[in-house]
């Protein structure tokens, strides 16, 4: 599949599954999941330094050999998101930022107005901005217009595992996007990821579905296979849906066993 690489802002990736590192019970399970997923890119967050913490997640990710995509999780305003992005640039020495500006702590849904403001400011400050957004096609277009390097629409709320609640909106976003579309949030299992890729997403970000599964490594592998399956299927040209059946076995040439006056 190396011929079919994901490209974002000039960087290329063989894997189309981005792994979120939140929710793992420990670093060992995270490492196993990274390997099982074949992930090349993982999100990380920033929180107040805990002096008692032993070992940095960065050591784990380095050992596994994945690159880091910092996020601004937990920010409710453009201002806090921008400051957090600047801290991330300092902490991780990368201009890439997964921009999250949420409007609400029960749904964790993005706040459209603050999100656009933050995206604009960060693009101007030279960041490569990958915004977590709703499935609103107009908002996605606005984010692309202000210079985001990709758009990351949700399928359903973070951690909800409800999959893609509105495939119609997602497909409209994909049809009209000039930048990569990465499904972010809502994936609950492998088929959700496959479906997203079949709709034409360029990649899938998955965190809770893997980190909180009973067997994270197995689910990481499953979601990774789902992403590959969906990507391949997207390119293979699926059959059209039809209300009635179409025989897969030819109908002509059926033998006729019955005959008038033949005793059986």
């Amino acid at each position, binding site marked *: 599949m190396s011929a079919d690489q994901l490209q974002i802002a000039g960087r290329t990736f063989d894997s189309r599954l981005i792994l979120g*590192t*939140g929710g793992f019970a420990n670093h060992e399970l995270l490492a196993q999941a990274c390997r099982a997923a074949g992930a090349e890119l993982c999100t*990380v967050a*920033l*929180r*107040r*330094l805990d002096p008692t913490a032993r070992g940095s997640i960065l050591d784990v990710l380095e050992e596994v050999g994945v690159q880091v995509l910092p996020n601004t999780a937990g920010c409710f305003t453009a201002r806090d998101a921008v400051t957090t992005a*600047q801290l991330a640039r300092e*902490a991780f020495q990368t201009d890439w930022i997964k921009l999250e500006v949420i409007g609400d702590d029960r749904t964790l849904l993005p706040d459209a107005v603050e999100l656009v403001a933050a995206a604009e400011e960060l693009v101007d400050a030279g960041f490569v901005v990958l915004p977590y957004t709703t499935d609103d096609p107009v908002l996605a277009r606005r984010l692309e217009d202000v210079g985001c390097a990709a758009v990351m629409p949700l399928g359903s709320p973070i951690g909800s595992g409800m999959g893609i609640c509105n495939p119609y909106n997602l497909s409209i976003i994909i049809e009209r996007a000039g930048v990569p579309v990465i499904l972010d949030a809502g994936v609950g299992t492998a088929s959700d990821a496959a479906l997203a890729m079949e709709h034409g997403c360029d990649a899938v970000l998955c965190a809770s579905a893997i980190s909180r599964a009973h067997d994270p490594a197995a689910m990481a592998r499953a979601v990774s296979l789902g992403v590959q399956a969906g990507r391949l299927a997207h390119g293979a040209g699926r059959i059209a849906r039809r209300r009635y059946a179409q025989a897969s076995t030819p109908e002509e040439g059926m033998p006729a066993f019955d005959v008038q006056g033949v005793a059986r």
Partner: protein
Amino acid sequence: MKVTVNGRPRELSAGATVASVVEMLDVAPGARGVAIALDGEVVSRGRWAETELREGSLVEIVAAIGGG
């Protein structure tokens, strides 16, 4: 002087710098994935030693964790 570090009030001697705070928190000098904001502005690692705090300064020292 009185400052706030990661939400907790601290008493520092006059002339204390961002570096002093880092030291106070036992952060290894080369610690990875650490960054600092002073009164809402990021202070790059290279300027920790020279950047002085003032009365009421708000210091946030953050580090990488699993997320999103």
